[in-house]
């Protein structure tokens, strides 16, 4: 009985630490993005609140918290309320299987592992919940009873379905090489320095994954569901206050999640690039790699213009998916002959 209680405490504490850390990073990612965009566009970014605007995310959060919560008169209230939750929960729940580091921490005889759980279908679990996120967007757009919102929601659904395919197919190459669906085992399969990372043999898959991940998270240049200039912010036009904040948090949490997955699948997770640099804690390596991807995201946003809708679909179905399939074919053929 005491064992069960202690286990429960360990699990709950791990979940708490992971959630708080992720939400803090989500809040400061907005700051990070505004600062980098400001730097790229030769302006200062947020400067007013705190030293160099460091307290800006907290001010933003408080503002959203105190805003009036408006539900449109013609909206479907239940689904309108449900949609933001349905977007945020899948975005956060994926972090349960991410291994953030190597070493477990021992306090008072309890072992705290660097991940919430290691299930044998880790990557499929994340993909399954990622596909649920599309429902929140679709329903949010529909329940608002606004044609721009509906169009935004429909666009998002079409985009997510299309790019989910190439995302999943890009991952298959890595899975073939690692021989496991567990993210912990995939990380462990890449030990031993830079040359063992899957980015080298799976470079095509890496590029496909990066592009599909940007499309999956509805970020520029694939942000057609919320295109300000044509759809007035798309599916969340009618949302305000905390409900709006939920959509916002989900978008940034998803960015961090796909960056974490990219780090684990292609950049060796918490492994150091050279054995000599092993003295730096693995968690730090993980964070550095994740921030590299996040920077890349913002860099892309600051550089590329938005795609047109037909270009997006054409690119997804006629370029990405055939490339990903070819990658699987080549990878499995090579692996077959190498391992026989």
């Amino acid at each position, binding site marked *: 009985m005491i064992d069960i209680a202690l286990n429960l405490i360990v699990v709950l504490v791990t979940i708490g630490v992971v959630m708080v850390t992720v939400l803090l990073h989500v809040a400061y990612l907005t700051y990070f993005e505004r600062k980098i965009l400001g730097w790229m566009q030769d302006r200062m970014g947020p400067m007013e609140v705190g030293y160099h605007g460091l307290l800006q995310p907290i001010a933003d959060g408080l503002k959203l918290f105190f805003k009036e919560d408006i539900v449109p008169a013609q909206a*479907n209230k239940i*689904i309108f309320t449900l949609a933001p939750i349905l977007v945020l929960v899948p975005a956060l729940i994926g972090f349960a299987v991410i291994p953030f580091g190597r070493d477990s921490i021992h306090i008072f005889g309890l072992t705290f592992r660097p991940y919430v759980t290691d*299930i*044998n*279908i880790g990557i*499929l*679990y994340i*993909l*399954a*919940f990622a*596909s*649920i996120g*599309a*429902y929140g967007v*679709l*329903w949010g757009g*529909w329940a608002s009873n606004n044609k721009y919102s*509906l169009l935004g*929601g*429909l666009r998002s*659904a*079409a985009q*997510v*379905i299309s790019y*989910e395919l190439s995302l*999943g197919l890009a991952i298959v190459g890595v899975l073939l090489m690692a021989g*496991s*669906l*567990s993210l912990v085992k995939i990380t462990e399969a890449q030990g031993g320095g830079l040359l063992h990372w899957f980015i080298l043999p799976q470079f095509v898959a890496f590029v496909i994954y990066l592009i599909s991940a940007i499309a999956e998270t509805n970020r520029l240049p694939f942000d057609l569901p919320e295109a300000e200039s044509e759809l007035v912010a798309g599916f969340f036009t009618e949302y305000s206050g905390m409900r709006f904040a939920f959509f916002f948090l989900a978008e940034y949490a998803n960015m961090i999640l796909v960056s974490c997955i990219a780090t684990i699948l292609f950049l060796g997770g918490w492994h150091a690039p050279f054995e000599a640099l092993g003295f730096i804690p693995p968690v730090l390596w993980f964070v550095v790699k994740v921030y590299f991807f996040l920077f890349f995201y913002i860099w892309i946003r600051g550089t590329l213009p938005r795609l047109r809708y037909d270009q997006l679909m054409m690119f997804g179905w006629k370029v990405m998916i055939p490339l990903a399939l070819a990658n699987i074919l080549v990878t499995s053929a090579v692996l077959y002959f190498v391992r026989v």
Partner: protein
Amino acid sequence: MTTVLFSYFAGVIVLMAVLVVASRKPVNSALSLLVMFFHVAGLFVLLNAEFIAAVQIIVYAGAILVLYLFVVMLLNLRAEESYHKQYLVGLVVGLAILIEAVLILSRSGFADRALPAAAPAPDVLSGNTEGIGRALYTTYLFPFEVASLILLVAMIGAIILAKKGMFGKEEKRSLR
């Protein structure tokens, strides 16, 4: 514990399945169906089939239901249009099926026999993904390949339907 969880999942599945056909708004039906898919996945987890549980959500909830919802929202079906006064026919057919089900269940001796034990938990190290792969490519290789052929036929059929008028005479006629 397993029995409690099973009862919960089974109960919600039945309730949601009824709601799918009973609710007046198509969008609410889709919502019920989504909840049902999740609980079916829960049943698979209870049976130590995590791989099938994940695939269940990815395929049914992630792809098929989104397409349904897409159509429902695009066509903007109204509540009245979805029912066509078929209560009488439905009642007769439903009764017939119910009687058949009761007959089959009462004669099969299903109730007397002890339930087969749940599949033994697969080796944690190898996982059940490998098990499914091995079964598909050895014991069930032929049915697996037949299924993929059928899916290929369906794909080609869909393309032909969608591109109607782009091959042969019809196109020329439409051009004139």
